[in-house]
Every structure is written in C-alpha cells, then in structure tokens.
C-alpha cells in the first residue's frame, strides 16, 4: 500500500525559498555592481557641486535633487533597470539552464515566479535606495538652499521609485516570459513610445506609464522646452492606481503564461 504523498508546497513558503536562492544569485553579480555605479552618478555629481559650487547656482539643492529623482531616476534609469532585471527574471534561468532545478521540485510555478519577482524587487531597491538617499543628503541637507525641505519628500520619492520599479518590472517580466528576445521591443517601448508619446499634447500621455510615474514627484522643477509645454500631470491617487493596476495585471498575465509554458532546455 502506498503512503500518501505530500502535496505541493504552500505558495508563500515555497516563494520565500525561491527568493532566498534567487537573491543570492541576483544581488552580488557584476551587473548589479555596474548598475549601482551608474545610479551613483548623481551622488558623485552632487559631491563635486558641493566641493566646487558655481557662483550663481540657478537651482536650490532641493530643486536639483527633485530634478535628479524625476528626470534621472524615475524617467530614465529605473525603467532601464527594470528592463534589465525584469525581462531576465525567467529568461536568465533558461539561458543558464538552471530553470530545470526549480521545475523539478515540489514547488508551483506561481511560487517560482513570485520568488523571482520578489528577488528582483529587493535587488533593484537595494541598488536604488542608497543612491537616492545619498543624492538627497549630498544635494539638500546642510545647504542654505535646502531649508524647508522635509524628509517626507524623500520617503514619498522612495515610494515613487518603488512603484516605478514594480510596474515596469512587472511589465518587462511579462515581456520576458512572452518573447524570446524582449530587449528590442522593450527598448522601443521605452525610447519611442514612452520617450515621445508622453510629451504629445492631448490624451496621448494617458497611455504611457512615464506620465503617471513622473506625476508622483510633485516637487520637481519645471522642465525646459517642449517637454514642459506638453507634459501632462495626474493626481497622486490616480497615478498610484494606474501604475499599481498595470503592475498587478502584468504580473498575473506573466504568471499565467509561465505556468503554461514548456521550456525545452537541452545541453
């Protein structure tokens, strides 16, 4: 008589174990180091500005910090980071042929995907948070121009960065499980769709993510030129809802596709 076999491991417990393995493989990699260096560019720039301040600084330290967060992080760098890590969530394991180890364990594909996505979020936030905080400290704290700036803005900005990384990461994770080569479509989306359409007049920006993401940074200084002329801004609540919804829907779709897909991994 055969003994009753244990069931598939509970989703959350299994996801935590997948997370533990994935974070160890994701965080200490060279690419994380290079991404951190790129993210730290504003910190270096801020230090140079403090050491060699220009005579007539046209912006306050707080305004400059706002510009860095809005333009450098939220608009450009974080979506690229999300494309780098998010699209590689499962395809990395496929390329390295280690996905088989996860698929032949008593864990559901849902827990594998959740664990990997959690590892992605923790990795990118680990890289982003110190850089944003240091940028804030270097540019705002202790400067006469920084007077009136509160830590609440920093916390809100970190939350905006987290939501940006969550949404774009989920979207590119969906791209990664759907397409064999997600890089070019991802770049076209970021540089053509999000880069141009977000600055069109009318309702076109409603169909971009970057318009909602940059709406979360309320204290950013005005941009110059056409970008400011045509930029559309949304309320915080609306932006959080749209970004959150896109992220959740992308994650659900990505999980569904991953659960059904077969991976032919051979030597």
């Amino acid at each position, binding site marked *: 008589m055969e003994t009753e076999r244990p069931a598939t491991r509970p989703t959350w417990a299994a996801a935590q174990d997948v997370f533990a393995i994935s974070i*160890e493989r994701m965080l200490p990699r060279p690419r994380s180091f290079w991404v951190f260096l790129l993210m730290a560019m504003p910190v270096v720039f801020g230090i140079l500005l403090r050491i060699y301040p220009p005579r007539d600084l046209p912006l306050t330290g707080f305004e400059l910090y706002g510009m860095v967060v809005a333009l450098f992080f939220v608009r450009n760098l974080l979506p690229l980071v999300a494309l780098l890590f998010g699209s590689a969530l499962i395809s990395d394991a496929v390329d390295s042929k280690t996905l088989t180890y996860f698929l032949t364990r008593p864990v559901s594909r849902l827990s594998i995907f959740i664990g990997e996505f959690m590892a992605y979020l923790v990795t990118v936030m680990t890289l982003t948070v110190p850089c944003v905080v240091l940028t804030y400290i270097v540019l705002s704290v202790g400067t006469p121009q920084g007077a009136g700036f509160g830590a609440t803005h920093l916390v809100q900005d970190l939350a905006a960065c987290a939501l940006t990384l969550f949404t774009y990461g989920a979207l590119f994770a969906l791209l990664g499980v759907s397409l064999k080569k997600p890089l070019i479509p991802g770049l076209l989306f970021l540089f053509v769709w999000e880069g141009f359409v977000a600055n069109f007049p009318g309702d076109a920006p409603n169909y971009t993510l970057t318009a909602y993401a940059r709406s979360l940074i309320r204290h950013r200084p005005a941009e110059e030129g056409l970008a400011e002329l045509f930029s559309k801004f949304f309320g915080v609540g609306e932006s959080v809802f749209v970004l959150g919804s896109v992220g959740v829907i992308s994650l659900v779709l990505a999980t569904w596709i991953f659960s059904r897909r077969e991976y032919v*991994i051979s030597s």
Partner: protein
Amino acid sequence: MTARVVFEKASRWYGPVMALNDVSFELGPGVYGLLGPNGAGKSSLLKLASGQLRPSQGSVRLLGRPAFGSPDVFHSVGLCSDTDALFEDFTGLQFVMALLSLNGFDRATSEKLAIEAIETVDLKDAMHRKVGGYSKGMRQRIKLAQSLAHKPEVLFLDEPLTGMDPQNRKRISDLMKRLGDEGRTVLVSTHILHELEQVTQRVLLIHNGRVLAEGNLREIRDLLDRHPRSVRLQARDPRGLARELVGLPDLVSLNMEDATGHLVAEIRKPDAFFSRVQELAAVHGVQEMWVTDENLESVFSYLVSK
C-alpha cells in the same frame, strides 16, 4: 508491481519534427537503461517522464499523477539532467542545500541530507569550494548529489557517468545498482553500453522516437529468433569439429578464421547446438565456446538496422 512511470501511447513533436512516437511502457522498482543513438528521443523521453514537457498525444504518468503540472510528485522524484548547468557562485554544499530547501526541509535537515549525498558521491573534500571551480567530473557528481539528496523513489539520470574517472564510474554504477536493490526506480540514459550492462539487464531501446524493444536483455535476445546467434569455438581439431557441425539442421553458416583458427558458427537454436558441441567436446578437444552477440551493442545494432 506498482508502476511508477507509465507512458501510454505518448508522442511528442516539436513543430514538424516527431521526437517520440507512440511510446508505451511501464517502470516499476529497479534500474532501467535507456539506450539509443543521438537524436533517438532519449532526452525527450526523459523530459516527458520528469514533467518538463507535456506529451503532444497520449499520457505520461509519474507516481500515479500526470507528470506535467504536478509539482507534488517531485517530493519523490529526482533528476540529474545532462546539461552542465549549476549555481556557479554557490559552494557544493550550498548548492545541494538550496535545492533541498525547495523540497521543504529545514536548514538543519537540509545540511544533514546534503552532506550525506555529497559523501555518497565522494565530494566531501570539495563541498566548501565554489562549484564554478569544479572539474567536469566534480560538476557531474554534485549534480548527482542534488538528485539523490532528498531520497527520491524515482530517479532520472541523463548520462550520469559523463566526465568521471574509472574509479568514480565504478562507484556511481554500484550506487545505481544499490538504489535499484532498495526498491527505487532508476531510469539511466547512457551511451556507455558496457557499463550499462554492468548496472542492469533491463533496457529500453529507442531509435527514431520509437521504442524498439523493452525488457530483459536476454529475453530480448531470445525474441530475436529470426536473427541467428553467433558462437565462437576454440578447439584442438577445428576442422574435424567443423565436419561434425556442418550437418546440423539449425546451422546457418560456419567459418574458420585463418588468424586464430577459431570456428565462428551462426545458429538458430542455440540449445540444440550447445548439446551437440558438448557431445563432441572430448573427441575434437573443444577448449572454449562463447556467444559473441548476446550483448547490448549487437542487439541494438541489429534492431536499428531492421
């Protein structure tokens, strides 16, 4: 016998390419060899059996459940795949422990089981070294360790002896036999024919996506009664012996090798032939007699050529 792995009219194709065609078999406890040339469908069969792919037609059941989409069966299933892929930055111990954690073992138990498995494959000295620095044989052994560590009922081993030195090949072959004796189901895919014969007599011969033959090697051979057996005889008086044997009704052909003086006979009914040779042994000084094609290679070659 409770079948643990059941293929029922299973087929699998990749686009227009048929990798596996209408395959049916059952595996219970014991060691089974999966033999076939490159492109025969061995890897596809193992992938179907281990639930990585679903069959295009038919069914594949593993421990009573559909192999694809039933992660719960992997509490009792282990896979050592042929791909040379590991978590390169992990140490050997960390690698096996990490995969054990996915089976639900706590840290202390994972460590205990991992060390046990690593000792089984003789890698204890290197278990604290990063896997990225392992030699080919060591990489193969640590892959084997992760497949055994959770003491599975069913083991799929794809080319497990690749890259191993003779000592470790013997060790792993003995391990496979031991696992079979313990009542586990072990399906081994390999090209190393003579080592497969030392591990098991139960084979699945596969070619062009079809199972050509399945069962005990000797039984398969007996079934091939249309194909004559080849017997080699060494005697003091080979010509005299040949004169006696040539009149036997089941003799297909008889040759004498110039170089060795041996007689090579092709016969249909070996039992009758052996009885006759025994009667003639003393008169013509028969010193040695052996069947030359009752091995995996010749059986397979014959089946493939048909």
